[in-house]
């Protein structure tokens, strides 16, 4: 196949997903060359960052060769034809074990089938490059007492990369992969997206199937795409979204073309700014608050009408989310906790065990509150096209300082939208003085992901943040 020259392998590795997919389809880029470039980069650098639990070097190259043959044969190609992807290792792939980054599942036999989302990515032509590090069962972590180390931030390996979809965020930010899947129960796609300076979407609850994904909290779990640009994310969600009757929470709602409004701008849109989460309920680091102010100013200059809004205090949402999450997680882990407690990490135990001491009325009252909060939030935003909300309240913190992790891990405003089910995207909005990424969330009404992408793409096109690369 013909190859358009790239100045460096790094330039090739950092091509956007949209561009890689387009070049492969036109024969401009060999999927074998591209995949080998990523494998070389992973081989050279991932020992510093531990983003992969398993790299499928042989099978992914075989699949890349088959993809190349299909291009040459003029076959009909899917939108992700020949493009490698990574799966957080709580998502099933046929022929591989799903470890959940835990000793509890480390000896499980290989799965006999793909998760629904894995099937969708493969049906679109994607090729699986590896299984990614996570926090144990998407809840503990960062843990240093498990068979595998935690992933580290590519912008500074001493810093936390966010979790629990840590490996997915790190690998995409580091140019090891153009796309990966994460899961999000209290913010776990958006947290690593925020800390690693990439784009992470938690779509509306029910929009993306969770079949074949190890549950953490049945009523809060979401699966979401992680990419370096907004257009890449929209492309990936176009492949992932859709009704799945095998997931009891899947929504039978028509799927929009998420890339259709990317160039429509924000002129005339009414966008809310939910400031009290980060300037009253939980005081954000000034560098985060300033970056959000600046992003709001950019959107205003681009023609959006910005509207200050208020909702219930962040703590009301966060506690409600936590009661539901740990109750459901404890119910799932109860037997293993009784029989094999020593195989869990300390941080997992610390986070899940409070669920043993929540009662039925605590759980039911949390569900009652959830409904009130959901109705109230959607009422508040009903005449808005989107809402700007803080993501993390602090820049990425030191990963192996247990006290700092304990203090700052929960300083975030992502969990409210697991509770309400609204779609929420994390988008880079700058860097702090140490060169660490900062981000905000864009939230919208249910199934309004296309509008979120429109706002995000307009902001992205007007700023420079997505073009920066970490120096590995």
């Amino acid at each position, binding site marked *: 196949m013909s190859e358009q020259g790239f100045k460096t392998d790094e330039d090739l590795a950092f091509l956007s997903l949209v561009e890689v997919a387009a070049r492969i389809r036109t024969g401009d880029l060999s999927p074998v060359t591209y995949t080998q470039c990523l494998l070389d980069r992973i081989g050279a650098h991932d020992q510093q960052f531990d983003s992969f639990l398993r790299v499928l070097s042989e099978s992914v190259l075989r699949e890349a060769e088959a993809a190349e043959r299909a291009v040459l044969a003029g076959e009909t190609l899917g939108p992700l034809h020949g493009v490698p992807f990574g799966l957080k290792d709580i998502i099933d792939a046929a022929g591989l074990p799903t470890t959940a980054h835990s000793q509890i599942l480390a000896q499980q036999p290989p799965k006999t089938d793909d998760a629904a989302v894995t099937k969708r990515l493969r049906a679109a032509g994607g090729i699986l490059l590896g299984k990614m590090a996570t926090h144990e069962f998407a809840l503990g972590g960062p843990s240093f007492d498990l068979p595998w180390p935690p992933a580290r931030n590519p912008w500074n390996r001493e810093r936390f990369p966010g979790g629990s979809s840590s490996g997915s965020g790190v690998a995409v930010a580091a140019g090891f992969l153009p796309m990966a899947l994460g899961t999000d129960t209290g913010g776990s796609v958006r947290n690593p997206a925020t800390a690693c300076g990439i784009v992470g979407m938690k779509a*509306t*609850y*029910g*929009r993306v199937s969770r079949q074949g994904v190890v549950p953490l909290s049945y*009523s809060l779990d979401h699966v979401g795409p992680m990419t370096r640009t907004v257009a890449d994310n929209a492309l990936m969600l176009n492949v992932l979204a859709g009704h799945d009757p095998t997931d*009891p*929470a899947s*929504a039978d*709602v028509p799927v929009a073309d998420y890339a259709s409004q990317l160039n429509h701008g924000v002129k005339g849109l009414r966008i809310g700014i939910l400031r009290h989460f980060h300037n009253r309920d939980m005081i954000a680091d000034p560098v985060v608050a300033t970056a959000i102010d600046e992003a709001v100013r950019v959107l205003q200059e681009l023609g959006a009408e910005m509207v200050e809004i208020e909702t219930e205090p962040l*703590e*009301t949402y966060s*506690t*409600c989310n*936590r*009661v539901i999450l*740990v109750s459901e997680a404890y119910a799932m882990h*109860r*037997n293993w*906790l*009784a*029989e094999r*407690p*020593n195989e869990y990490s300390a941080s997992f*135990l*610390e986070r899940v*065990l*409070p*669920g*043993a*001491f*929540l*009662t039925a009325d*605590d759980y*039911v*009252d*949390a*569900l*009652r*509150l*959830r*409904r*009130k909060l*959901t*109705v109230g939030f*959607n009422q508040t935003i009903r005449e808005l096209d989107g809402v700007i909300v803080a993501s993390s309240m602090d820049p990425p913190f030191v990963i192996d300082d247990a006290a700092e992790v304990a203090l700052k891990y929960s300083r975030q405003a992502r969990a409210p939208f697991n509770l309400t*089910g*609204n779609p929420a995207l994390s988008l880079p909005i700058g860097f702090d003085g140490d060169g660490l990424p900062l981000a905000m969330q864009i939230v919208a009404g*249910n*199934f309004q992901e296309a509008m979120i992408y429109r706002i995000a793409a307009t902001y992205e096109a007007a700023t420079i943040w997505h073009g920066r690369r970490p120096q590995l």
Partner: protein
Amino acid sequence: MSSDNLDDVALAQLARHLGLAKLYAARPELIRKAYDSGRAMAQRLQRPDDIADEPSHIFQADNNV
């Protein structure tokens, strides 16, 4: 839970009832911390005061709320 200040004997008994005897025997401080944390969480939970406020049941984004 009726008492938020369980003594060690009561906590050990509760842990046993919950199937956490093994963990309590090895790390009683972890169970104490989990108990305190769970009950503190329950205390912080803002409870709806109208009995007509229904739970979200099996939550679905567009047809259940």
